[in-house]
């Protein structure tokens, strides 16, 4: 997965710059929030890769790690990542709702 | 009444007629019948009144008048313009060129005389 990261930054930059000059000021804060959510969604798999490559450090002979510890760690990450992803997606969905015109002014 | 009148006109019969009319009343009349050197002649003779035809061989009367008006010496010279073309635009052109009076041929002798009298400085 790591090789895929960073490939589409230009595309998303254009998305941002293309959008920012058209979107009115009053949604600036919302848009800003939304973009940070996207940033978080992008960062999440990178975090996942790092966390799941961490067990390699325990595998060296000097440090002996018990299998149960390893399993609990891997599964804890496995539970945590989807939960965070779900929260992010939920937040995105909520913010993606079109703002009502009368609320804006 | 001993003013000098210069007549610039190409038709000899008309020159003769004007000369006769004015001389009879005591004016000194000089004549010239070419447009080309008309300005020089005017400067040389420095008349009190100039009678100028429009259709002159060599140079148009309007043109001559314009040059005279551009020169300080002849700026205020009274000029009576004669033309055989009786259209209003000819009158306009004469006025624009700086004519003091404008007269359409054929004129009456009394008219010419009266105009010269009126134009001549007292």
């Amino acid at each position, binding site marked *: 997965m790591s090789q895929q990261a960073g490939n*589409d930054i230009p595309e998303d930059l254009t998305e941002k710059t293309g959008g920012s000059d058209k979107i009115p000021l009053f949604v600036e804060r919302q848009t800003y929030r939304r973009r940070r959510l996207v940033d978080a969604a992008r960062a999440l798999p990178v975090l996942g890769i790092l966390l799941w490559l961490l067990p390699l450090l325990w595998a060296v002979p000097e440090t002996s790690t018990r299998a149960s510890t390893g399993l609990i760690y891997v599964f804890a990450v496995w539970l945590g990542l989807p939960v965070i992803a779900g929260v992010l997606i939920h937040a995105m969905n909520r913010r993606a709702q079109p703002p009502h*015109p009368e609320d804006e002014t | 009444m001993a003013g000098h009148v210069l007549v610039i006109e190409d038709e000899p019969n008309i020159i003769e007629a004007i000369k006769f009319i004015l001389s009879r009343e005591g004016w000194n009349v000089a004549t010239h019948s070419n447009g080309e050197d008309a300005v020089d002649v005017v400067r040389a003779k420095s008349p009190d009144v100039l009678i100028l035809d429009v259709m002159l061989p060599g140079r148009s009367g309007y043109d001559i008048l314009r040059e005279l008006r551009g020169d300080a010496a002849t700026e205020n010279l009274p000029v009576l313009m004669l033309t055989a073309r009786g259209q209003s635009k000819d009158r306009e052109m004469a006025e624009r060129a700086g004519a003091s009076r404008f007269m359409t041929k054929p004129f009456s002798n009394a008219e010419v005389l009266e105009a010269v009298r009126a134009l001549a400085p007292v």
Partner: protein
Amino acid sequence: MTNLNALAAISILYVLFLFGVAFFAERASRRGRAKWLRAPIIYTLSLSIYCTAWTFYGAVGSAARNGFEYLTIYLGPSLVLIGWWWVLRKLVRIGRVQRITSIADLISSRYGKSNLLGVGVTLLAVIGTTPYIALQLQSVTLSVEVFHHATPGGVEEQSTAFWVAVGLAVFTVIFGTRNLDANERHHGVVMAIAVEAIVKLAALMAVGIFVVWGISGGVSETLARIDASELGQWEVNGGRWAGLMFLSAAAFLCLPRMFQVMVVENDNDQQLRMAAWAFPLYLMLMSLFIVPIAVVGLDVLPAGSNPDLFVLTVPLEYGQNALALLSFLGGFSSATSMVIVAAIALSTMVSNHIVMPIWLRLNENMVSVSGDVRHVVLLSRRLSIAGVLSLGYLYYSQSGGGAALSVIGLVAFTGVAQVLPAMLGGIFWRGATRIGALAGLTVGFVVWLYTLYLPSFGPGAIIPKSFFENGPFGIGWLHPEALFGISGIDPLLHAVIWSLSLNTVAFFVASLASFPSPLERLQGAQFVNIQQGTGGTRSWSHGAAEAEDLMVMAQRILGATDAQALFLREARRQGSETHLPAPTPEFLQILERELAGSVGAATAHAMVGQIVGGMSVSVEDLMAVADETAQMMEYSATLEAQSQELSRTAAQLRAANDKLTRLSVQKDAFLSQISHELRTPMTSIRAFSEILRDGDGITPEEQSKYASIIHDEAIRLTRLLDDLLDLSVLENGQVSLNLGDGLLCDVLDRAEAAALAYDDKRGLEIIRDASKEQVWLNTDTERLSQVFINLISNARKYCDAPQRVLEIRVTKGETLSVDFIDNGSGVATEAQDVIFEKFARVSDQKAGGAGLGLAISRQIVTRLGGAISYLPGEGGAAFRVVLPLDRALAAQ
């Protein structure tokens, strides 16, 4: 022990149940009540075909044999889904917008609809999937045997696999090729898979729960038991851990069956948004009890038991027949769902990229019959399904179901992962070309075959044993498991690293070096720049930003005023207080129509689609744009022709107008001229007549002189009026010629006499050659002599030589020329053109004429059928009168 017949009955009942689920889902979908079928949860569950029987049975086996490495196979896909924003989002959108039917179609379509690439990916997929299908058949067979205790490799084993294959083929044909849907979605199949997903998760978790709480006695006890087992130490091979994680992630994206459920069956972004977090959890749950089951299995079962079957044998060991049966159904579900989807995916690819192109080439003239083609497509799909399953069965029966199959999973993963560079490059890099994709795939495929796939059959099976000792033909650096002399790496890792890196390098370098075709570039742009809007793409409910985009676009096309008026009108109609109407379908339709008036329907549709999303530009749209452009060009060519004609007409009108204006100016000038010519003599007449009238002081000489001036001027006036009338009559063509015969010399004599009648003192000598003048003319001699008189008079009046001479030269050729040449200075060059015009008096001298003489002469000569012209370069003024001789000839 469960009776085999009962097992068969339960299996058949279960299959019937699945048939029912698929059937009802399909029917609901056809009746348009398929909303729940598109629920994100169904989509998420359908992704579970990633977990095949290889997972269900094999994960425990893998854990028992290799420890925790099995986790990586599920960690990779989890990362892909958690990182959905990076790749899957784009991939899924491209799939929807471009109506992609398979991964081969994706690659083919991206690289300019190259069928060669389609065929290549299809072959790769078939080669990679067939053993996998065999593996599923084997797992079902093995699981049946657990209940039956049959001898492995016996007749029954083969027949089980056979009947399972047949059953799956029937199911797949029925639900996989029910219709030729444009978007290739199979609601029935997806629904059945979702149900199977639940069954297999429930079965595995049930076994797991039984193992943890039923056997081990709780979580902490289980953890203790794990630590105490031979798996007790956390040991992983770092290279394999990272490598397999990457490989499984790659395979998750590239496996034909995964592509089918993830991209082809995808309906909206919401599905993906749920799967992004829910499917990793599903995978986590599937993996959760693997180690406990393995540990318990290793613990309680006799040594030498097949760890691949612990999921079945552990419950059976404890007499839990029902649990074992559930577990069996779970395994069965895993196997069948994978085979069904794989068969659909492969059959689509085989049919679209291999069978149909061949059929179309063989029946070129039949393509126009649409119904026929549809039928053929369905038939080819069905045959392909049967073919794929037959291949799987054959592979299974030929390989003998041995250990070779258990490693095939990762081998197949590596094979299909070869598509990854072309796929990711295709959706993220516009510079990727068809040649690059072909090069990458070919290199990757060859390296994979040589380093992993063929060696997987064992040394000596296909690749000679000597290759594994000294390299092929003694070339050490080509050793299949130690390319370029780099040895000591795990063979799988070795193959993954070399095949994918060489693949990527070849893809990149060939892409850089080659030049894409226009269609490739078009498709590349379409894929890479797939619109990045948010929300469900088929709904029209979008934010204000989109309405603004529409506004910006409309202003560009309609002009600011019109666009704003349109938007305001629509906003008012919708009852909105703002200036921007909501982009409802009605409004979009109106807008599209407005835009179509300016840019054509297809373009308008495409433009609105670009902004609204959902319906992006398809190739058909672009074709339509091209068509419309062609039509517009044709239309504008017509317009151009018309406007050329218009401008020609306008030019003619302008010319006519110019002529009229010129005539008007001429008329004014003419009148002014006449006025002048009349007033001048009248001035003299009036002045002198007044002098005479007044009478006083005039000498008798003067009196007589003035009277004669009056007389002369009166004559001049009369002559002028005569000339004018003469000219008018001549110009109007009202003159009647008085034709008669006469000698030229007589006419000249008369003219000379008339012209010189009053020439008392001026003295003009005329030179003539009488011998040449003996020419008879049939003409109006009066008029002709008038011309001659005028020319002679002109010489008399205007010749400025001291000793004036006029030579009259007569030349007879085709026509008769009479030249009048004097010895004066002639007419200036610039005046030569105008002397024949009315009142064109060029001389300064007072000549008494009105300037009408030459104009009248020209009119007369023209009437007489001749011409008069000025002869330049004769020394003096020279005029030539040319007369036609046909009239002269008659007289000779």
